[in-house]
């Protein structure tokens, strides 16, 4: 089983510079755990004690997983997961 996970520039330090890595799992949470076993520390950039980190966007194919099942979103062979840090800021 292979799920492609696309990694943004700032997280490629965890993947040896790779733009894309593969993993497996039945849910997004399992997939992140699987990735973390080979790319230690990557999961902590996406997830904290409260769940998915607020300013990191994770997409299953074309959809933000916040609109699906969050970390419990089922994933399957052939899916593509994309990670994009949110672009945000402000005057204060």
């Amino acid at each position: 089983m292979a799920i492609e996970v696309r990694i943004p520039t700032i997280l490629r330090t965890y993947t040896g510079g790779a733009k894309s890595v593969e993993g497996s799992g039945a849910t997004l949470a399992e997939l992140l755990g699987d990735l973390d076993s080979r790319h230690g520390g990557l999961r902590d950039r996406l997830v904290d004690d409260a769940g998915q980190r607020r300013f990191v966007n994770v997409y299953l194919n074309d959809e933000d997983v916040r609109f699906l099942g969050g970390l419990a979103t089922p994933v399957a062979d052939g899916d593509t997961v994309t990670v994009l840090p949110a672009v945000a800021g402000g005057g204060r």
Partner: protein
Amino acid sequence: MLTITADLHDKIVAHARADHPDEACGVIAGPAGTGRPERFIAMLNAERSPTFYRFDSTEQFRVWREMDERDEEPVVIYHSHTATAAYPSRTDISYASEPGAHYVLVSTREPDRAEFRSFRILDGVVTEEEVRVVDGRAGSAPE
């Protein structure tokens, strides 16, 4: 240094003025590896706030995928401050996640004068850079 055409400079300022008193935000895409801003993309501020901005996550996905398909990257990421200086705030610095981008700040705190400044933000360190506004169509700026 940020080299940008007058046309793109003016589009950023116009967007900031139009959205005032909310913060405006957007991207200027350019061919990957060239550092040349060419394609203006105004983004929705999903926060619609006078003190905060955030790209809508679905729109960001579409724009980032489109840039990828066109072999572009986000050369400029711009946003406006509506009551404070055109300088990166603590939140701007903590959320800066495109190490190759020029972060352009516009301040619309004064009605008759827009401040336009550009910065690199790398690992939490802000470095201001010169802005060189050139004439001509995007892509034809002299090297």
